[in-house]
């Protein structure tokens, strides 16, 4: 399942309700998940909040492709990808990637693959609102590039 949300979400509740509703009890031996959360600092600047823009249509299509690629490479039972858009505050969850499989190798590797592909290719863009400091007033700044996860 893939969800793009404009409102804050609780990844722990999403995980638990998806797992109970997916009706795979007894089949899965592993669930690996990654939760990305907004920090209040970036590149040495204190951040008030941020706006997450996306490309409606292409974003969903691309996330779907990433998940299909992962399903071809590994033996997976279920996947759940949730990503926020819109206004976010520090400590808000940004992304959840969860993968269920029989054994841990598939779950670990597929969740890492989905997350890294999402970070490097899914069409989302972050614009931070930086706190005022002694040198300047509050200002907005597009995040230029994601750091490599490998």
């Amino acid at each position: 399942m893939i969800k793009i949300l404009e409102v804050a979400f609780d990844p722990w509740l999403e995980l638990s309700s998806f797992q109970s509703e997916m009706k795979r009890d007894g089949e899965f031996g592993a669930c690996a998940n990654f939760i990305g959360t907004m920090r209040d600092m970036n590149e040495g600047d204190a951040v008030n909040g941020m706006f997450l823009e996306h490309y409606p249509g292409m974003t969903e299509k691309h996330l779907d492709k990433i998940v299909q690629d992962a399903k071809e490479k590994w033996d997976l039972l279920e996947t759940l990808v949730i990503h926020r858009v819109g206004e976010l505050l520090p400590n808000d969850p940004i992304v959840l990637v969860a993968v269920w499989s029989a054994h841990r190798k598939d779950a670990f590797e597929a969740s890492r693959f989905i997350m890294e592909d999402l970070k490097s290719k899914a069409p989302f863009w972050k614009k931070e609102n930086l706190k005022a400091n002694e040198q300047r007033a509050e200002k907005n700044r597009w995040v230029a590039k994601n750091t490599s996860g490998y």
Partner: protein
Amino acid sequence: MSIKVLYFASLKELFGHADEQVNIEGLDTVGDVWTFVSNGNGVSQQVLFSLNQEYADADALVKNGDEVAFFPPVTGG
């Protein structure tokens, strides 16, 4: 020929609008469309291309009714 062009993030701000319809003959590729719309905009940053909501190279061929988008490197997750 009519092509829908979309801009995102910093490029949307640079161009001052999120989308436009380009109705002009002689644009064969995504790269041609980019050259046409960016002419004089002084874009110095890295720009990625998509054609009908999939990543595309500059030499990808465009046809009437296509959707082309231009955007900076992605920063989700």
